[in-house]
């Protein structure tokens, strides 16, 4: 094994604490040095196993808490007629009063017609003018015609697609999603990566990009990269909770495969 890196550095890498200036070199070294890769994986698996064992201890404790709760509940059981006597009496009085005094709407159609209006498809472009290439793309995407979207976007001007404007970023994001939907995950990942390097102000779009990027990585089996991307996901993201579950699943899946 290449002795370029100390045990401390290897463990720092596993724990995500290796200084940024060493990270790129270290990752290149992992690709080239099988022993180093093995060492890194063994540390990762050991830590994951440790966590799995602790989860198991917790679950045993939780089962004990479940039985405690069950016992408490048994001690508090009240006969049905006692527990609900007041509610039953109140219901009888209410039913009697309703029958005599309340006038309820008899015809649902009346209410329905009052609120009904025909659904209108909203499009940002004018009906009179010819749609631009970008507008056509947007509509194809909205209609979930992902293959057509990918064909059509090739006809749009590169000046528009490659700029850093809001429209261009949206189109490229839709392209990445379309690639993903057409199962071209590799190119989808590349598109998401190029989007991540752009200055995007819209936080929800940024979160969407990060989340679907993670999913594509997971689909491609790039587990380490996916876990790293999850760790960078903002806790404000609407995908945050989901991502934590994905992370746990990926970790389990990962070490199970490695130890197999």
């Amino acid at each position: 094994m290449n002795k370029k890196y100390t045990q401390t550095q290897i463990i720092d890498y596993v724990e995500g604490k290796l200084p940024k200036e060493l990270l790129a070199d270290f990752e290149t070294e992992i690709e080239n040095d099988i022993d180093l890769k093995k060492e890194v994986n063994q540390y990762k698996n050991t830590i994951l196993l440790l966590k799995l064992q602790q989860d198991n201890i917790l679950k045993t404790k939780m089962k004990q808490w479940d039985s405690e709760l069950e016992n408490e509940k048994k001690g508090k059981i009240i006969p049905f007629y006692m527990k609900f006597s007041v509610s039953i009496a109140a219901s009888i009085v209410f039913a009697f009063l309703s029958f005599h005094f309340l006038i309820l709407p008899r015809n649902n159609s009346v209410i329905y017609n009052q609120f009904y209006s025909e659904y209108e498809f909203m499009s940002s472009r004018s009906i009179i003018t010819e749609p631009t290439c970008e507008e056509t793309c947007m509509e194809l995407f909205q209609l979930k015609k992902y293959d057509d979207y990918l064909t059509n976007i090739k006809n749009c001007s590169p000046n528009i697609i490659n700029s850093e404007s809001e429209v261009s970023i949206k189109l490229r994001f839709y392209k990445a999603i379309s690639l993903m939907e057409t199962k071209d995950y590799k190119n989808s990942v590349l598109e998401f990566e190029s989007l991540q390097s752009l200055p995007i102000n819209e936080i929800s779009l940024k979160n969407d990009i990060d989340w679907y990027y993670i999913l594509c990585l997971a689909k491609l089996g790039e587990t380490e990269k996916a876990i790293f991307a999850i760790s960078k996901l903002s806790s404000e993201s609407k995908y945050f909770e989901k991502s934590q579950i994905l992370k746990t699943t990926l970790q389990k899946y990962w070490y199970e495969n490695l130890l197999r």
Partner: protein
Amino acid sequence: MTEKELEQIYKNHQRGFLSWAVYKFNISSDEAKDIFQDSVIVLMQNINDGKMKNEAPQIKSYLYGIAKNKINDGFRKNKNIMPLNDFDLKFLMQDNELEEKTEKEFLILHIEKSLIALGNPCNDLLIKYYFENKPFKLIAVEMNYSNEDSAKTSKLKCIKRLKEIVYKSI
């Protein structure tokens, strides 16, 4: 987060959660219990990591949010439905559940044996650091190390030794 705090959260939310999950998602009480336990573990990890605060109103919505996703993912898996835009976890879980469980039990047994072989104080030190996410400063105080660096060095030695034991006996 202490064990007492975790127990409190667990006991405060377990009943409400079970009725909600069984009623809303039409799952069995045992399934709801499993999901609740997994969700509490995720919640605890996030509190320990400092990703969220241990505050009552937040905890309830967070816990239910995690569980909801877990249940929905489980449903997709069972019904073989995979919405185009949301092909979450299903494709990662292709293994036979029974085999997975047996393998998991084997792994747990294996690490338990390794930890016994490792012994204390290493055992406690690693759990405090990796599972409870405690900083070295606190670990040094709790475990009577002379300073933070000394705890750090010990942790390094301990994880190295544990790794050797785990892989030696496979």
